[in-house]
């Protein structure tokens, strides 16, 4: 597993590794090294404020301690946001998937379906993106490929109605997991954001306590706007965790660290490709290792 993270982040960690390699044991990190380190953190989209705070933590450390101290602090921040997800008492576990346009929601649904299938769960998918052109076709092709149930209506329908139908079907069929795909929406679109609340409410009507998990799919290339996304989707949709996608490129998704610190949302999964198997359960230590190119401190 560690190797998947390392591989996914290899291309991106070079800069950090370089900065860290410049440290001479026994001495304090000099300001040039700290500047390099800050640049590396900035380059990972950690953001100027969090980067400055991280640098402050290691400012007075001896050179050989900078690396482990930085890693430990990053792991601490990420772990502080973690907590157990709610479990379904009875009936299916309902997972609502939300996010801005094109972040990778539909593909993540396919990956999650495959993930749950491999654990022996019976999965049902709800195609509640009734807006985007061919969104239903996209999900149907994935459902067929994976052999999971799909509930869909024609395009232009009411997304809440699709979610309602799907939950009822899941109860009737004895499904273990319901995955609800939603249309991409920018967090600034008030009416579309309140639509998510409606989906939540109809879900609850059928499956008490649902949705048990609301995943915000965050494009790993996203910059500081990710923080706004997390805040707004948390408020409107009750997000419980993040999925960080597209980490197979050169982006590192460092804004997720800032989200963990500021909003308290944990990263649950990481997307590392376009196939249904390209999903990894998040592990803070391995992620930081991949980012820093170093053994994260215990």
């Amino acid at each position, binding site marked *: 597993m560690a190797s998947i993270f390392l591989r996914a982040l290899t*291309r991106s960690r070079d800069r950090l590794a370089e900065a860290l390699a410049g440290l001479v044991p026994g001495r304090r990190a000099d300001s040039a090294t700290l500047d390099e380190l800050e*640049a590396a953190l*900035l*380059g*990972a*989209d950690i*953001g*100027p*404020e969090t980067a400055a705070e991280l640098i402050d933590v290691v400012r007075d450390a001896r050179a050989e301690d900078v690396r482990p101290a930085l890693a430990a602090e990053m792991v601490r921040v990420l772990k502080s946001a973690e907590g157990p997800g709610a479990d379904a008492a009875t009936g299916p576990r309902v997972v609502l998937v939300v996010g*801005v*346009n*094109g*972040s*990778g929601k539909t593909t993540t649904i396919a990956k999650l379906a495959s993930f749950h299938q491999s654990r022996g769960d019976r999965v049902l998918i709800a195609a509640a993106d009734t*807006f*985007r*052109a*061919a*969104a239903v*076709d*996209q999900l*149907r*092709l*994935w459902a067929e*490929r994976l052999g999971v149930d799909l509930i869909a209506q024609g395009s232009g329908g009411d997304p809440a109605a699709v979610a309602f139908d799907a939950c009822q079907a899941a109860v009737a069929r004895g499904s273990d997991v319901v995955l609800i795909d939603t249309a991409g929406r*920018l*967090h*600034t679109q008030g009416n579309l954001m309140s639509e998510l609340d409606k989906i939540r409410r109809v879900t609850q009507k059928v499956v008490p306590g649902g949705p048990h998990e609301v995943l915000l799919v965050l*494009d790993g*290339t*996203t*910059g*500081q*706007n*990710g923080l*706004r996304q997390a805040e707004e989707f948390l408020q409107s949709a009750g997000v419980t965790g993040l999925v960080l996608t*597209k980490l*197979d*490129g*050169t*982006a*590192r998704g460092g*804004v997720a660290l800032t989200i963990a610190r500021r909003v308290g949302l944990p990263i649950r999964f990481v997307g590392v490709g*376009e196939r249904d198997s390209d999903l990894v359960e998040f592990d803070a230590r391995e992620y930081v290792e991949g980012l820093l190119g170093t053994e994260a401190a215990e």
Partner: protein
Amino acid sequence: MFEQLTGRLQTTLRKLRGSAKIDEKSFAEAARELRLALLEADVHFGVVKDLLASVKAKALEETVTRSLTPGQQVIKILNEELVGVLGGERQELKFAGAAPHVVLIVGLQGAGKTTTVGKLGARLRREGRSPLLVSVDVHRPAAREQLARFGETADLTVCESDSDDAVQRAKEAVREARRRGDDVVLVDTAGRLHVDEAMMQEAQAVAAAVQPERILYVCDSMVGQDAVQAASAFADALPVDGHILTKLDGDARGGAALSIAAVTGLPIYFAGVGEKIDDLEVFHPDRVASRILGMGDVLSLIEKVQDQVDLEVTEGLEKRARQGDLTLDDFRSQLQQIRKMGSMSKLLELLPGASSAPGLAQMAPDDAELKRIEAIINSMTRVERHKPRVINGSRRKRIAAGSGTSVQEVNRLLKRFAQSRKLMKKLNKKGRRNTPWANLPSF
């Protein structure tokens, strides 16, 4: 966040005030805050460094103009720099070669390529062209259906092909366009990572086969620091001509625009501002520059100060103010200038020193109140406006009735006016700097 930043920036910049030239030390302080603002806006840290270096060189050279504080001057130079990097004047996409003109649309996964192809098609048709759309995305599930659906709703012709090969599909589309007499072929490609060699080779193969006249790179405006690596890798692999920035309808500051323009030197032609077919606009460098800076208010004020303040009026007024001869006519023309410049509270934020006086904005009259004040003055006779002393009780009643206000409001205005007349006299005796701000009525 931004408010906070702007606040901090103003504090720093206020310190710059009063010196006729910007020196190294004061610039360094301002630069720290500007750097933060640009990084928060997702401008690549390397680009930020370069930008500030060139702003510094210019700022240290320039003498501070009469109407701007040195801080505003720095922002003005930075803004000009940003607009310059973003392409200066807005760019038009033109075709030169023989029809059909092939346009290849490329970019990372989910950037908005397919939607943009639909929007571009609609736009070109509005311009009297006959576009043919084709998807060569043979990878993502239902990618071709997506474009086909767009074609149906917008009544655009989408080339159908049975081939599952990207190069073949592109070639067929060009042949089809020739046969049908279409003059533009818009090719929608699959999303790909710049580090995915096989996929980048596929894009090169498509380009080699259909020799596009234009290759446009689509960039999501929410992208952070990675924008630089991705855009430059695409530009290295393919002869990219320019960019299209999508999802600007959100609240991302869009620093990516600056990053990609800076590293590739290529223009940004269009901005996507929604999911619908008409949500494509010509890219305006100046608008995006001020969005990135997050100081639209400061910038428009700077502009307005330069454009709109009627210096003649101001200068005559200054003289009268110094002599304590300010009339209610002057007062009214000042009010009108303020209203031309925008809301009072915004203006106050920009006043040197105003941000350090918390609550000042709440104390300032709002726009509705300014209008009422103007109405009161309008109800006065010329003599009353020039010699407010003559306004007795019955005159006050008449003015209140004429302006639809109350006697109390008239009283309040007259009192404020008398106070500000005194204050101005005092201030001007002290030889305060000659900025337009010096003449604002003090409430």
